[in-house]
């Protein structure tokens, strides 16, 4: 029998809130799914859409972007800018057929270790049900043979 599907999830988080939240989850001995790979960045405003594409290119089944709640940004406005950007980028991905369920966004403060735990667990469960993002990963595998024409 084949191994059960374990989703690969990449989380791009800001260092001041969500990363601290994840840290809190850890120090509080809260357990969350080990499917998530966390990439820490200074601010959600620093998270380029390229990161999401790269994560998908490298085999992620889902991507999480998370930062400070509106008004709490360490850089005052970074997450407001990010919010607009994600509104647009999410619509774009959805329009090109990359399911919204696979690209998630959240606000998690340094105090919300429990929310982080819950979110990761739920997301992992959701993606486990959805299955691997084969449609996209297939693009990477056909590259080896694709001399398209």
């Amino acid at each position, binding site marked *: 029998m084949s191994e059960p599907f374990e989703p690969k999830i990449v989380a791009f988080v800001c260092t001041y809130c969500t990363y601290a939240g994840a840290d809190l989850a850890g120090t509080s001995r809260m357990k969350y799914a080990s499917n998530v790979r966390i990439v820490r960045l200074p601010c959600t405003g620093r998270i380029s859409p390229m990161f999401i594409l790269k994560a998908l290119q490298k085999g992620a089944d889902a991507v999480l972007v998370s930062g400070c709640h509106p008004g709490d940004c360490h850089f005052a406005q970074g997450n407001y800018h990010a919010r607009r950007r994600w509104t647009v980028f999410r619509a774009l991905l959805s329009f090109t057929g990359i399911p919204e369920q696979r690209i998630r966004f959240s606000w998690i403060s340094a105090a919300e270790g429990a929310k982080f735990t819950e979110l990761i667990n739920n997301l992992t469960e959701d993606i486990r049900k959805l299955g691997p993002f084969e449609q996209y990963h297939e693009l990477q595998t056909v*590259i*080896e*043979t*694709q*001399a*398209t*024409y």
Partner: protein
Amino acid sequence: MTRILPKNRLDDCIAAWRSAGFSVLAPVRRSDLSRFEEVERSEDMALDLVLTERTIKDHFFPQTEPLIKYSIKKHDIDTQEMVPPERKRVFFGVRPCDASGLAIDDPLFGWDYRDEYWFKRRDNAVIVTIACTTSDDFCMCSSVNLSPDSTKGSDVMLRPLQNGSGWQVEALSDRGNALLGPISSILKEGSDATASTASVPVRFDVDKVMAWLADPASFESHFWKEISVRCIGCGSCTFLCPTCHCFDIQDEGDTYTGIRRKNWDSCSFPMFTMHTSGHNPRNTQSTRWRQRIMHKFNYYRGKFGVNSCSGCGRCTRQCPVDMGITETLQAITNLTK
């Protein structure tokens, strides 16, 4: 009496070739684009097009192809060459200009160092050309010493019959002869008249053009700036050209595994010749356009004795700003009147 391939036996013909181990590729129109693709039935073919938007070059020199797969360990390296498989292919319904394009590029890919990525495909392909009975405003084969029924690069030539019931068949090479073997029972003898070929007007005087380009004084002529002022520097003319052969080599992957690929590149792009230092020998669009024209009608001829243009006219047909080889060469012709 000549041999005739009846149109209504085309499906049998495809079946015969397929059972002889050939894939049959023909012009198709799919997803709003005409191109050569493998077909199983004649109804999928789009044989009435003047020209497919994409050339058959795509199947010999693909827009992107893997060259070498690599994996790197600490003090060791594994490489695996990804040479294309030797697949027997028939290209049915090629236009004479596209077929000539292949023949024009052969010497380049064989120049001292043989490019097997080209020849593995080339050596296993049979080109069945259909002479043109229609043309459009951009066709210019007659201006580059070719014609709507030139046989250059073809293995079999089909000439449409006047009554539209089929094609007169002529084998032009051993490979072409061999291809007619499996369909010998389908071919019939006949003396039906063939339709007249398209009349493609001569749009410029290629001899005058070549003479002007060969003159060293022309190189720095103000002409190049004038003629290319509206060029936006995209690569559509080069990528749709049946003879443009420039490429880039790029690695994709990470430090451990990946693939080195050969991708189309275009002399229209500034990055094409940009040195790492920032110095760029061809740093303006006019010098890049000059390179393209010079390469096709002067340098290539000097090396391989043939102009690198088969007159398909795609460069003008598809140009976003209505430029192209025809206009430039017409202007040169007029310069030297």
